[in-house]
């Protein structure tokens, strides 16, 4: 006997998910589907209970096993099929494929753990807008091993963010059973953070759906987070051919599966529904297979870097860099409603370790979020806010700590726009001070800039003491994609152009991320020196000595956009001087200078 009776509409939806998943497996065997798929056969009612019961304004973040969640939330079976078949009409234009879907407030990413802070940020955005929308993030039991989850649970509880974490426990992380890699109690983890928890099982869909509705209602009405543990069984392998579970075990799951029971007890209905859905799915697939893929030139147009060669005099500003930064943020946080400021210890009167955030929380308390020591969550939440239309500025107290947020930068912020076929933008800004000569020791003095260039779709800008940093930040406000800003600890206290080397002229070009050049007032220079950020200030103070010691008249070029170096300007200068030195702080091997020199070598004609 059927343990519970649920409505046929739901059964048809569950069957649709299962049919689509099974179609994927058969397409894969036929060699028509590129890459692999992670099917949720057996777990369908978890998708319907949560994603299926949300409102249109709500959102869903999902993981690698996202097809069911996608269909339950969007109803877009065709977009999903086309996506996995790599067609232009796919939900992510055939670019994202199985794990990277984006459509009407639905997002998925194949990275475990990292989606949790992103969804928290998205939900925080809804809370700030007071639009009554909530979000669901699906994780698996495997995700329980990731630290980002716990950083986020702490924050969503403390900040009362309306996010429902649904943990689908299918008792295996890929091929590894819980018994091998999971300690303690799952619900207790959330409860330890003061988060309300629920538990349900997909074999009792009616209860699950009812409890899910209660949880959704709780998150919405109380504006608080919630954790829902769903026990479920995955009837197929994790992906393809990686199932070492015993056939008896799987058979046991299959027998508990609601759709199996329904098929036995309501065979006619089951067959009828199955046939109709299969026919529909097969027709869609037939049709999609005729469609075309997205052409590379539609998707990607390479742009050549070209810098302004129009130079204007650079002017000193009788203000310290940190004052100018602070002034910019104080002005913008009230003027730009999208702006949010997050970071550790940034509440005033303390105002952050380097005082950039001084008084910000007095001026706009609702837009300044002082966080726990949770770099991954700081950047993840910022990513989510950015996806939701905000302009978050995340402060990482020391550049060294940005390594803790690397997953968020590389696998999330950088990826969203392109893997979602340009349907989403993530205009997040991550600011951090780098550099030594402050005596803070090895883990608070590094210059890690070279790890932060060459990240797809991420601009990396290093400010300096040669112009007002607000010039750069005003441009950053307009950027639609992620920007990392490298500040420098020793530069904060310096004034703009505080030292003018005698007999040199200071000029700035008209690029949005300006390049500064310091050249002999009338002589033709003999050597080109490139330095940026904190090093530029040091080299500037040595220009006179460089001439006296080397008998060479130096020209100093100071880029600010270090993720797209002004190789054309440098090449032009180096071609004239015949000498090029790049000075940067950090470990020597594989540096930014090496990249610049390689680019310049390509541009300069053979001697």
């Amino acid at each position, binding site marked *: *006997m*059927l343990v519970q*009776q*649920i*409505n*046929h*509409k*739901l059964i048809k939806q569950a069957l649709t998910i299962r049919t689509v998943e099974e179609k994927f497996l058969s397409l894969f065997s036929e060699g028509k589907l590129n890459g692999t798929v992670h099917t949720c056969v057996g777990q369908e009612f978890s998708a319907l209970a949560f994603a299926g019961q949300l409102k249109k304004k709500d959102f869903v973040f999902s993981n690698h096993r996202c097809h069911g969640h996608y269909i339950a939330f969007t*109803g*877009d*079976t065709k*977009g999903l099929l086309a996506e996995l078949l790599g067609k232009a*009409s796919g939900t992510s234009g055939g670019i994202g494929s199985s794990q990277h879907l984006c459509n009407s407030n639905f997002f998925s990413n194949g990275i475990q753990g990292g989606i949790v802070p992103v969804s928290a940020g998205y939900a925080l955005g809804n809370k700030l807008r007071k639009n009554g929308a909530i979000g669901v993030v699906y994780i698996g039991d495997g995700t329980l091993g990731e630290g980002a989850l716990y950083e986020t649970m702490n924050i969503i509880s403390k900040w009362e963010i309306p996010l429902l974490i649904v943990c689908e426990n299918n008792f295996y992380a890929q091929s590894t059973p819980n018994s091998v890699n999971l300690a303690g109690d799952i619900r207790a983890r959330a409860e330890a953070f003061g988060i309300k928890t629920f538990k349900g099982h997909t074999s009792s869909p009616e209860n699950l759906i009812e409890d899910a509705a209660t949880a959704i209602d709780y998150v919405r009405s109380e504006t608080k987070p919630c954790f829902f543990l769903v026990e479920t069984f995955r009837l197929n392998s994790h992906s393809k051919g990686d199932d070492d579970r015993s056939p008896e075990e799987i058979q046991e799951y299959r027998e508990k599966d609601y759709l199996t029971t329904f098929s036995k*007890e*309501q065979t*006619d*209905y089951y067959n*009828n*529904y199955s046939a109709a859905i299969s026919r529909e799915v097969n027709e869609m697939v037939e049709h999609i297979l005729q469609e075309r893929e997205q052409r590379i030139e539609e998707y990607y147009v390479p742009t*050549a870097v070209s810098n302004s060669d129009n130079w*204007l*005099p*650079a*002017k*000193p500003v009788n203000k*310290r860099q*940190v*004052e100018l930064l602070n002034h910019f943020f104080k002005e913008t946080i009230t003027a730009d409603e999208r702006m949010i400021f997050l970071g550790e210890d940034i509440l005033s009167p303390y105002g952050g370790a380097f*005082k950039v955030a*001084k008084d910000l929380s007095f001026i706009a308390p609702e837009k300044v979020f002082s966080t726990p020591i949770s770099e991954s969550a700081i950047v993840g939440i910022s990513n989510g806010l950015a996806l939701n239309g905000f302009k978050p500025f995340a402060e990482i107290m020391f550049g060294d700590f940005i390594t803790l947020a690397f997953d968020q930068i590389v696998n999330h912020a950088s990826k969203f726009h392109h893997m979602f076929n340009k349907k989403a933008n993530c205009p997040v800004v991550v600011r951090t001070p780098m550099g030594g000569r*402050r005596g803070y020791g090895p883990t608070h003095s590094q210059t890690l800039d070279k790890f932060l260039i060459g990240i797809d779709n991420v601009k990396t800008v290093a400010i300096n003491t040669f112009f007002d940093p607000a010039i750069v930040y005003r441009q950053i406000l307009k950027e639609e994609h992620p920007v990392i800003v490298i500040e420098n*600890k*020793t530069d904060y*206290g*310096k004034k703009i*152009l*505080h030292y*003018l080397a*005698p*007999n040199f*002229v*200071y000029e700035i070009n008209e690029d949005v991320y300006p390049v500064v050049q310091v050249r*002999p*007032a*009338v*002589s033709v220079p003999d050597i080109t020196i490139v330095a940026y950020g904190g090093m530029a200030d040091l080299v500037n103070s040595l220009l*006179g000595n460089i*001439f*006296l010691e080397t*008998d*060479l*008249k130096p020209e100093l070029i100071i880029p600010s956009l270090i993720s797209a170096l002004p190789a054309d300007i440098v*090449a*032009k200068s*180096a*071609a*004239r001087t*015949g000498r090029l030195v790049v000075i940067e702080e950090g470990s020597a091997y594989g540096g930014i200078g090496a990249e610049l020199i390689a680019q310049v070598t390509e541009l*300069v*004609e053979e001697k």
Partner: protein
Amino acid sequence: MAIVQEIKVPLIAVNDTSLTVVEMAFEHGSLVKKGDVLMVFETSKTTYDVIAEAAGYIAYSCELDADYEVNEVVAIVYNDAAEVPVKAVPKKETAVAAKKEDYKEAIAYWEGETLFSPAAIELMQANKLDAAVFKGTDFVSKLDVELKLGIAKPALNKKTAANKTVELLPVDPDKVTIAKLSSNKKREIEYLSNIQQTGLTSTINTVVETEGIFVHINPSLQYLKNSLLPVIVYETARLLSTFKELNAYFTGDAVAYYKEVNIGFAIDIDKGLKVLRVKDAAIKSIQEVEAAIMDLSNKYLDDNLLVEDLTGISFTITDLSAENVHFFRPLINMMNSAILGVSSIDEKLNRCILSVSFDHRVTEGKLAAQFLHELKNRLQSYRSVHHTHPNQDISCFKCFKTLMEDLSDVGFTKCITPKGAEAYICQSCLKGF
């Protein structure tokens, strides 16, 4: 000499290796008494008052608004007035910033001091060369001296700019075949570039629920049944008399508003992309709009289009609904400020996406959004509420199964729900599985 107090720049904050003197409270050489504020420093965060430790005469060795390094001595309090030295603070160098308008003229003459490298000095001394010959120069290296002495010759072949300006992409005849652009394509590129290349356009979209929409539209149409185009042209034309900014264009320094509404619709059936004009669309009936569309399409296919069929278009509609398009971003035509894109009807979701691209120099998102919203409402007003097979509207209130799907062959039973509403229930739900 008795120094009562030596005032050095203090280290106050980790960020600040130098501080600014923002106040010098006394005249140089004045008598100060214990507890007086002698001067004020400013850091990036705060100000710092220097208090006199005892009475004496103050001698400043600093300037207002100048920066001094930590530990630099900036003032001394002496015991005796006679000890106070005459103030002689060197003037700070002023910036070498020429006026912007003069800037283009390259500085060929240096009025400042000339800096000689040690190697240059050595060579000059050996050759008894007078430094005065280098007047007007900023730096003099050994090479400059050698040039002056005629020992070295100027290098003529210094490398020049390494600018590689690439206008045309490379073509390898082994790998590609070349097709010249047709004049049609060139015109299309020109017309579309005009607005799009400014980068000041954007696109907004809306979803129109289309379930049952043709129940009322089709009877009004003779040829274009199941097409939204005639009714979209009809409704858009009427709306444009209110949304004048969308029936306009940017002239370069002003906005030109069209006095008439002449809607263009894009067509591309084997004869190249053309935009055909439905003249005075705002005063035509739906039937007249449909007739105009048919007439223009036939002329297009028969190559009988007249100049006036292609010109004077004040607003364009591009309908890709026949191409199975889910969603696209239309590009604005020259001398238009907006364009409406019509995507295909999603038969499953019963909806269709409309997109408006607009020129930000003429209008803005809010207005375009209002236009789109209004258009959507007007289109949806054609929907029939009870349009489908009557059976489909009958479903079991408990399991949502419809009468058509029911296998019982008995039909549904009319019932009263626990909430007191009238409804239907299927046999399985009534009797239990």
